[in-house]
């Protein structure tokens, strides 16, 4: 039914969507939604430096560089917050723009110096190029997804506590800073393996939109995580299929637009929080279990 390459890309975007859904749930709940954006932007200089040092386009060389500088960006955010009077939003903006600026300067330098080689093609990493995903990329994504899911399951209790009551978590003797770093590393790894496929801005979108959509459907963390990863996976697959069907449409943006569509649908029809539910149009569809009051609210 599909070509071999399409299957590879499908598997890649499916697992990317799933892992982004899991990690993103915590980012959204902890009001750190834009950290993914910051990490993605700060990965750029590391990518370029790795290329400059090793003259290789291999993902195994470039991605560790990207991961290192992405994490450096995340650490810089925490340090600036801790040691200056600047607010969260300013600190994130500063780190994002300065690292990204360094990345662009390095890329331009590389392009001008190695004019004949295709070099580290900047645009690939800004908007991504899922169509050229390799089998090795997919293995990487699958490994990251598996490791992320395992770690989140192992630390589920602690992460839940951290997400809803950081102070209580601290009082209970858990290292909030340690758990914070754990989440940061998981976010950075997810962002970095996603970079070649969906690009800087759109990886950040995968971390935010599916969890935000999942939030309409449930009040339970475990369900939210599952729904978010389902939405992420469905968006990944749908986006890939659309881009395979209409040749020439880029995959990454289509994935994001699909998840935006799911977000809007959830906002409309989700029980209790959806617009239609609130306006009362959906009440007739649900059998009266005697739990609703006169205004149709529970």
């Amino acid at each position: 039914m599909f070509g071999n390459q399409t299957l590879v890309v499908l598997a890649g975007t499916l697992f990317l969507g799933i892992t982004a859904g899991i990690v993103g749930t915590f980012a959204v709940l902890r009001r750190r939604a834009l950290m993914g954006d910051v990490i993605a932007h700060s990965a750029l200089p590391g990518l370029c430096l790795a290329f400059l040092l090793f003259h290789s386009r291999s993902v195994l060389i470039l991605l560790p560089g990207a991961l290192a500088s992405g994490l450096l960006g995340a650490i810089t955010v925490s340090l600036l917050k801790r040691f200056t009077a600047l607010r969260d939003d300013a600190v994130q903006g500063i780190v994002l723009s300065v690292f990204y600026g360094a990345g662009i300067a390095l890329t331009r330098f590389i392009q001008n110096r190695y004019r004949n080689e295709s070099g580290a093609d900047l645009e690939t990493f800004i908007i991504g190029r899922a169509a050229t995903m390799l089998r090795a990329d997919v293995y990487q994504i699958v490994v990251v997804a598996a490791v992320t899911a395992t770690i989140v399951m192992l630390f589920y209790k602690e992460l839940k506590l951290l997400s809803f009551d950081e102070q209580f978590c601290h009082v209970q003797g858990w290292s909030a800073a340690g758990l914070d770093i754990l989440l940061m590393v998981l976010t950075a790894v997810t962002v970095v393996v996603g970079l070649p496929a969906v690009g800087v801005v759109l990886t950040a979108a995968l971390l935010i939109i599916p969890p935000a959509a999942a939030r309409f459907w449930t009040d339970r963390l475990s369900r939210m995580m599952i729904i978010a990863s389902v939405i992420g996976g469905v968006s990944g697959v749908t986006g890939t299929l659309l881009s395979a069907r209409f040749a020439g449409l880029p995959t990454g943006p289509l994935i994001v637009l699909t998840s935006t569509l799911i977000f809007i649908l959830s906002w409309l029809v989700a029980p209790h929080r959806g617009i239609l539910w609130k306006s009362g149009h959906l009440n007739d569809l649900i059998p009266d279990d005697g739990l609703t009051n006169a205004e149709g609210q529970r």
Partner: protein
Amino acid sequence: MIEFCHRGTAALLAARPAIPLQQQTDQLAELLQLPATDVQNAFWTIIVGAVCATCCSLVGCFLLLRRMSLLGDALSHSVLAGIAGIYLLTGRIDPIPMLLGALAAGVLTAVLTQFVHRNAAVPEDSSIGIVFTSLFAFGVVVVSQARHVHLDLDCVLFGDLSFAGVNLYPTFGRLLPESFRTLIPALIITLVFLAIFWKELCLSSFDPTLAVTLGFSAGIMHYALTTVVAIVTVSAMEVVGLLVVAMLIVPPAIARLLTDRLSTMLWLSCGIGTCCTTVGYLAAVRWNSSAAGLSAVVGGILLLTAIVLSPRHGMVERAIRTVRLRIRICAEDVLAGLFRQQERSAAADAVTVSTVDKCHALAGNGLLAGAAIRWLTTRNLLQKNGATMFLTDSGLRYAQSLVRSHRLWEAYLQENFDLPPDHLHDPAEAMEHFIGPGMQQRITEELDAPEADPHGRTIPGA
């Protein structure tokens, strides 16, 4: 050294009439032994960079104060959607509709962000993330389909400051950089906006609640500012691309670290922004790289410098203040210790005498003990006579005041906090260094001029 090539520039430059400005740059070129056109280009690029930095810094200061810094990031991405939308509608690429579309997309981002945040109960940061990434994705999809028309993603995303001084365009009988056509109106709009709404902006930035209570609509100010930011972002993006975020946030943040006054912060950030673009441009010429990117890097370096060296909030300054305070505390411990020693010796009129070693011990024998003793001797509170040390008259008064503070505080704590007697000394030992004459007076009045502290010792210096 500087290599520039761009369409038609040479022809345009050849056609231009000689003006005094050009003579000056020509002279400069001769002085530097560089081609005249290069110096001319560099001159205009630096001017364009300065105008761009000024616009961005002026609005950026208010974004920073209102904690809306990430709005710049969001706007600069969703601008692509505006350009794409206009392309879908008209099928052509004309600068003015594109600008208007970009502007509309910018305002739409702000409106949608608030809408999703309010109506969908999504946290504000997530709501920003959802809106701008979706718009950006839409933009990328449309632009990818528009390859046959020249709609250059690179140009939208990265801009190029290096060419800003090359694209000259005849305006009012002179050759001026093309980007002035959008930057100068943006600068004028920003300045007019600031001049008209200065009071309201200050009020709603520093105390939004008071502003609302006084009848200024928070919503109107928010959207007016957003519109101006969108205008500035769109016109600056032609020059610096997505890195407009850096110019909106970094210079105001540096200025914020250096000053606590809004007016100072505004002009300081304009200066810093100009410095970033100028140095960034020169570095880009030197290393053949992106001027906008290097401007952001220069901003980052300046920010680090400010964090370390800032006169008020800098790390060095804070470290110095801490050490000074610790020296003063050590020195005051010596004085109080000598006073108590005299008290215990019962010979009230005897001059307190001690040895250098004992004084060091009173100061805690640490690294700062020597500095503390010097602090005392230079202020003539303690005098050295051979191996002995003794309090001077002013030292005695100082010490008396300290011990008075200590015992008053103990009395105050016992009166008001019901602490057991053995818990009174330690807090008083810390507080005695910070209780001045005014506070002494107030405690004395509140406790009806106590004679003795809870341990039964006389409170001196009544």
